[in-house]
């Protein structure tokens, strides 16, 4: 397995400071090395895609970043400080995530779910909750208002009173994003945000992620939908069997023959899937000519119609 050490910090576009830096992250479970020596840098205002075939270690890598796992080797720094491997402290530092298989609090309402996200940014303790002084009431009202605001932001403003478990699938995904946003993150990690969505929902999700990015939050996204990833991301990291295969601009990654090979395999075990991926990649090639990936400004990273749609639909919420 050849890992390209295409320097992660190739300064293609103007981004802010480094938010997250993972250096040489290794995660072993007994004899199995799920993640092997992966580097990742995420800067302010950037959307980074994480792709790779099933079992490549994407989610494991996510779990290393968010403190669910303690990496066997390597270190993760957030804004220059080493992150402790405790999910709670990671969230406090400013990094929030969603889950591949939606993990909402099913028997709480949508609004309550988002209010739980505010937990780490509020401070009312047991005693104050019982006494209920003016400070407690103010904080409670603020929490509620902020949660409602976030529901409006992701387009669920009217669904606040529904139990999370009863919401349609696409709405649950968006609710999970709202809940993550409630923790005031500077970096949002999305684990397959469009899995199982229909094309329309996928488009809405994409718009939402752009909107989040534009509000100054860096985003790392795991995704299998290639069109989604190459339209959305400023940079793409491809993992295969726990190792970095390629890292670079979407154009570089999609034109890399090894990526196609990794997805399709050299054999012919799954022709249909292979053909489909190839078709998609071809289509992408046509839509985004990749002659000058380095000069590309952010506005050319996705088609104008999509941007227009973002703005046009923005008024909907």
């Amino acid at each position, binding site marked *: 397995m050849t890992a390209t050490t295409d320097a992660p910090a190739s300064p293609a576009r103007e981004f802010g400071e480094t938010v997250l830096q993972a250096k040489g992250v290794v995660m072993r479970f007994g004899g199995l090395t799920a993640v092997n020596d992966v580097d990742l840098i995420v800067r302010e205002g950037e959307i980074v895609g994480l792709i790779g075939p099933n079992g490549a270690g994407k989610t494991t890598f996510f779990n290393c970043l968010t403190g669910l796992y303690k990496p066997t080797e390597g270190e993760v720094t957030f804004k220059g400080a080493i992150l402790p491997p405790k999910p709670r402290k990671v969230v406090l530092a400013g990094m929030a995530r969603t*889950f591949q298989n939606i993990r909402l609090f*099913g028997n709480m309402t949508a609004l309550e779910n988002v209010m739980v996200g505010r937990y780490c940014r509020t401070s009312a303790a047991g005693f104050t909750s019982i006494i209920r002084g003016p400070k407690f009431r103010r904080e409670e009202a603020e929490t509620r208002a902020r949660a409602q605001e976030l529901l409006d932001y992701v387009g669920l403003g009217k669904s606040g009173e529904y139990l999370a478990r009863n919401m349609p699938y696409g709405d649950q995904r968006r609710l999970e994003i709202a809940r993550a946003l409630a923790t005031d993150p500077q970096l949002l990690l999305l684990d397959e945000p469009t899995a199982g969505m229909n094309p329309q929902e996928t488009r809405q999700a994409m718009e939402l992620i752009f909107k989040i990015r534009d509000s100054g939050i860096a985003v790392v996204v795991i995704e299998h939908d290639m069109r989604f990833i190459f339209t959305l991301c400023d940079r793409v990291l491809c993992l295969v069997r726990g190792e970095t295969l390629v890292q670079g601009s979407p154009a570089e990654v999609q034109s890399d023959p090894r990526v196609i090979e990794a997805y399709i395999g050299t054999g012919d075990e799954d022709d249909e899937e292979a053909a489909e991926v190839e078709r998609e990649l071809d289509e992408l090639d046509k839509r985004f000519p990749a002659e000058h990936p380095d000069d590309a400004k952010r506005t050319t990273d996705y088609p104008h119609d999509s941007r227009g749609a973002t703005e046009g639909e923005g008024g909907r919420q």
Partner: protein
Amino acid sequence: MSDRLDSLRERYGRLGWPLGLAGAVLLAAGTFLSWSYVATILGNLSVYVYPGSVQLFALFLALVAIAFLLMYRGPLHRLGDWFKSALAVRTLGLGSAVFMTIVLLLIAVQSGGLINIDPGGWVSWLGSLLLAVGGQLMEVRAIKDPIYARLPGWVEILVIVILLALALFGSAFALGQEDGSVFLLFFVALGTAIWALASCGFFTWIGILAARHRRVLMLGAFVVAFLFPFTQGGSDANMSIATQVIIFAATAMGLNIVVGLAGLLDLGYIAFLGAGAYTAAVLSDSAFATVGWKPPFLLVVLIGACVSATLGLIIGTPTLRVSGDYLAIVTLAFGEIFRLTMGNLDGSNGPNLTRGPNGIPAIPDLVVFGWDFGETHTVAGIPLGRFANYYFLLLIFAAFVITVFVRLNNSRIGRGWVAIREDEKAAEAMGVNVFGLKLFAFSSGAFLAGMAGTVKAHQDVSVTPDQYVFLNSAFLLAAIVLGGMGTVAGVLIGSAILQVLPEKLRFISDYRLLIFGLLLVVMMRFRPEGIIASQRRKLEFHEEDQELAERIEEIHLEEEEVSS
């Protein structure tokens, strides 16, 4: 089974209403006749012309059934739009059939033969059977959503007040029944009526009313509880039971924080009550108290609560990292360790703190602000005995515990607890301090139990280790599960049922555990969310909430159409 019932309903559905009405009328008519040849069974059932004793219960059931039948079809038709009267009739039919069968069996057994049942008994029995069959045949009509039922505000408050007054007199009446069988029959009749009201949707409406007038309801409930001793005319017999109920309820409410909100299974909770009680005992004026320091009672309450909470912290810190079954086992062991330790601190195996298995007897009654709890005081001409005094004190405690429970539940802390119960990993990933919150739940529950324990020590006069056996923890847990986890009203009702039934049904005391076990099994099968369901729990246990899900889906589709 239900398929066959459905096809029967389709074929003979028209017969349901007349059958039911005939049955209800027969049931009512029968109560005016003699039921039993022997005059000494279940009060006096051998009188013609007017109903008496348990016949009144049957008459009550019949009248309620007639009212619902007339709502289904007849003059009360318009009311029937709001209530599923067919379901109520079904429940009443089954309940009254069970009721009448028990009555006839009791008469037959106690008098020595079926021959001693008079025609009236058979008439009523036949009536109840007809009512049951008729109810089963009646089709359920669609109703309007009770949320749209709006009455003037004062009428709604009046309804709440009437219900509370009924609860007060009902409980006073029930506790006044000396005869266990009569009490059992009253319980069956009342349970049937309540179940019928619940199945027709009446309580949904009451729930909406209660949500609209929460303060009125809370205040009203407190006033009713406060007035209860005045209905007893100075008798201590029932007050002792009422005091037991309230102490049990306050403790269960503390456990409800741990189990119902935070979702931690604690099987050794009684130890915290014991810790409070022992603290109060060793600091009391009893001649057998082992500590020389005698602080005032209010301070003892605080010390007892803190001792208990500290124990909670000590046991919680290492064990709350494990979850589920493991936590249950550890807490179970803790409860036993507490009991054994208290039984061994007798001077020969360690310091003499608790006087071992003998416990600390002769704890004097409380005297707080010059009010001697041991004396009978006369207020407004009604004598209030020793237990009534403790009852008032415990009532204040219970109000405090309920306030703490409700306020914690509706706060950041409460949301964190529910989140942990729902999905611990996700809660942690959202920045909820899982361990801290669990520890807080554990120790605040212990704190409240410790408080209750300090009063219990004085009220029980003596404190011994065998009052704090595992069985009591199990009963506390059963009260919560039976009543409805995470609710206030449910736990109060569950505690009342679990404490009052064994007191009143002495004749089944040998089978007490068996009956509770069966009750819990039946409950888990048919209503796992408990008597009073919190909204969350209800959905948790009834996964296939298709109706609601579809309704939401529809609204969304409409929105999509509008926006596109």
